[in-house]
């Protein structure tokens, strides 16, 4: 924030040696406040903010890339404790980053408020007195004319008023000023920034963001326990979730098949869903990648997809001990996917299956399977089999904790792993454990559900901020003077202008005004002679 451009304090430096007076606590506080709200400090804080934002782009952040954090920690074990102390995985909510921008905003407020009062005063004040020597101003020209001084001044006033200058007559001169909107815009811009910050802060408390994987045919009900993961703001309560249900009817995916340079790249995802809200009829809706679904105060985004296998596990007697749709997490662009089946009700030992789903399976020269196209052209599901204890406590559906388990099938054991395909859907588990059946393969949609009531506020303040920015940068503020001196019947006309802030068109403005004035006077009383300056 700069000092107001019409403040008079600048430019006068006292050459006398400075005596340092003794400062009491109040004086020290005032001194510190002056320092903090000075332009130089604001500038340094801005640069500090820019530098402080850099580490967050070099080190993965918990908020944007949690998996990246895990792998960074794994490969930089020696630095993890230091990084944790410095909050390097949460740079943008860290104490030091927050300190910088809070200081910046305090400095901003401390600067805006006095400027606001100054500007309010300036808005009501008349333009300043005409300087004694106009020739010293950055833009200046003279002309001569005949006739009545009062008429020349009145004509000048009329022209300036038409150019929307504010006017004040001082004797035989007119003082004019325009572009007050420049400072207004500046103040609006900075106030708007504060508004954005506050809405983000306060609004953040009311937000929640949840993720849920929904396989084709499944229904998501908007309840807290229905989310796979959910993070909530501090004002989140039980009543924050509005009741609704979304059923995924189908997820259609199109892949590029003709352009060899982009073979297999996805070109469209379309999720057909049926939504149900209390007291309303079910509605058919569509969710696409750039087209979220708005429902019940939330936006529902389609952010991921993959395959899910419908599986049934029976024990040796033929009793169903597991039946369900198991999502497989994609591992590469051709959707080789990893999935886990946990059969807690198997006895005497619990049963765990870990395996891959290959949508278009091909056998590599090494003998291993791989997928070479993301669509379901030749799907194969393989499993390694574990027995033992699945462990207690919260379970991650994508990983199998094998610490309490023994592998009984699949490499590196000698027993061959399980292999299933639509053409050959049943496999016998080793050691008389029973059978696994592949009932089908469908797609799942990874839905992100967001609720952010502050969006409108943030958006509104951003619009105000931008309007202020453009006004403050592009509207020139300038003062213009016209002085008329009657020298024995010859009128000496002086035109001068001073820019308040950057003004590329200052000289042109004076020239245009002088020329228009000349023409207006000429039209009234005949030709006007012009002479070079200084004559």
């Amino acid at each position, binding site marked *: 924030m700069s000092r107001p451009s019409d403040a008079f304090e600048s430019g006068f430096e006292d050459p006398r040696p400075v005596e340092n007076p003794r400062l009491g606590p109040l004086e020290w506080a005032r001194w510190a406040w002056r320092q903090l709200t000075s332009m130089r400090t604001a500038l340094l804080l801005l640069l500090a903010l820019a530098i402080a934002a*850099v580490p967050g782009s070099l080190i*993965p952040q918990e908020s944007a*890339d949690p998996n990246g954090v895990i792998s960074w920690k794994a490969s930089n074990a020696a630095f993890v404790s230091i990084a944790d102390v410095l909050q390097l995985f949460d740079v943008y909510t860290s104490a030091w980053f927050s300190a910088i921008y809070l200081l910046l905003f305090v400095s901003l407020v401390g600067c805006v408020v006095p400027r606001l009062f100054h500007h309010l005063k300036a808005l009501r004040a008349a333009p300043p007195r005409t300087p004694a020597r106009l020739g010293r101003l950055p833009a200046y020209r003279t002309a001569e004319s005949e006739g009545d001084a009062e008429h020349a001044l009145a004509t000048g006033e009329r022209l300036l008023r038409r150019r929307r200058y504010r006017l004040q007559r001082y004797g035989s001169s007119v003082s004019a000023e325009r572009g007050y909107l420049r400072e207004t815009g500046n103040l609006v811009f900075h106030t708007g920034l504060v508004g954005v910050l506050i809405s983000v802060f306060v609004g953040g408390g009311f937000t929640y963001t949840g993720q849920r994987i929904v396989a084709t045919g499944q229904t998501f009900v908007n309840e807290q326990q229905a989310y796979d993961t959910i993070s909530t703001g501090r004002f989140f309560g039980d009543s924050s979730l509005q009741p609704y249900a979304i059923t995924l009817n189908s997820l259609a995916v199109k892949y590029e098949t003709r352009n060899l340079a982009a073979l297999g790249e996805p*070109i469209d995802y379309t999720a057909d869903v049926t939504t149900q809200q209390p007291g309303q009829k079910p509605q058919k809706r569509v969710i696409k990648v750039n087209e979220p679904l708005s429902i019940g105060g939330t936006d529902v*985004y389609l952010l991921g997809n993959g395959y899910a296998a419908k599986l049934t596990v029976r024990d040796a007697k033929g009793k169903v001990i597991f039946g369900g749709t198991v999502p497989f997490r994609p591992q590469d662009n051709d959707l080789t996917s990893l999935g886990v089946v946990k059969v807690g009700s198997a006895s005497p030992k619990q049963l765990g299956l870990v395996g891959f789903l290959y949508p278009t399976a091909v056998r590599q020269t090494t003998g291993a399977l791989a997928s070479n196209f993301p669509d379901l052209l030749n799907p194969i599901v393989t499993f390694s089999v574990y027995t033992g204890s699945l462990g207690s406590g919260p379970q991650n559906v994508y990983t199998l904790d094998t610490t309490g388990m023994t592998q009984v099938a699949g490499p590196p054991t000698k027993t061959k792993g399980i292999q299933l395909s639509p053409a050959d859907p049943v496999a016998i588990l080793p050691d008389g454990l029973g059978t696994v059946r592949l009932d089908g393969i469908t797609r799942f949609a990874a839905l992100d559900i967001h609720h952010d009531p502050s969006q409108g506020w943030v958006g509104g303040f951003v619009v105000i901020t931008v309007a202020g920015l453009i006004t403050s940068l592009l509207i020139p503020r300038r003062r213009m003077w016209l002085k008329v001196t009657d020298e024995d019947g010859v009128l000496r006309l002086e035109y001068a202008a001073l820019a308040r802030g950057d003004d590329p068109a200052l000289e042109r403005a004076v020239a245009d005004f002088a020329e228009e004035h000349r023409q207006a006077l000429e039209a009234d009383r005949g030709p006007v002679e012009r002479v070079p300056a200084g004559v």
Partner: protein
Amino acid sequence: MTTPLDQLSVLLLLSAMGLYAVAFVAFALDLARRSSEAQAMADEAASRSAGATASAAVSEVRGGVATLVAAPPSVDGPPRSNRRTAARVALAVLTVGWVLHLGADVLRGIAAARVPWANMYEFSMTGTLIIVGIYLLALTRVDLRFLGAVITGLVLVLLGIATVGFRVAVSPLPPALQSYWLVIHVFVAILGTAFFTLSGAVSAVQLVQARRERVLAAGRTADRVKLLATVPTSTRLENIAYRVAIVGFILWTFTLIAGAIWANHAWGRYWGWDTKEVWTFIIWVIYAGYLHARATRGWRGNGSGWLNLIGYGAVLFNFGVVNVFFHGLHAYSGLSS
């Protein structure tokens, strides 16, 4: 898959680069001429220093306009500028090159059946097109021919990197980019980048000019870089750089906002500190600092000039390094990792 249209686009682009190279040489020749011209002017001035003021006054009277007192150094250049054959040749070649460049860009767009800025190759191609376009447009208002060598040189390097390092065949848009915000957000970013480029180039010359002015002011007469005598003063250059940067800053603000709105549509949040968002923010803050530096005592002049260059460095880093090497959601370089 290389379609015939894309092949033609490449051919046009390479021809444009050839012409830019010719323009670069011609601009460089012009700079060399300026050097000897400045010497001649200095000699002339020395030989008839007494008559100089009188002749200036005469020319002003003959102009028939009311004069300015303390007229600022003119950017319209000294009266000899009209004789600058090399610069005129350079401009003509540059203009023809730009038309071919435009053709290359349009054909690429037609070949891909979408806007030609969906990956880094296309962004570079369109970005440099806009840089040269804005430079040519600016030339109709201010004489910035002294910048020609810097601009053509920079554009050549950028296009060289783009064709060798970023070149990818036409491929369909991934679902995440299928949005009209691709048209708005990215195009505004390109425009902003182009204005920052021009502003940065002026600031670079400003810093060199300021150094020369300091040397001259210190009384050392050895003016080694004579061509700078034909270039506006550092204060004047700073003003030009500032005005161009203002436009860039406003456009960059729109880039940031349009990006946030698009992110809200595509990813479910308007701001998430993705690496690219971080760098867009850093650039915005640096340029905000630059605008403030102009109003801070001790930072005007060289300080603000350096800040402008640091800001531009961040722009280049954001494009060339963050896109390719940083992990994030803005993975659209089209290069396989």
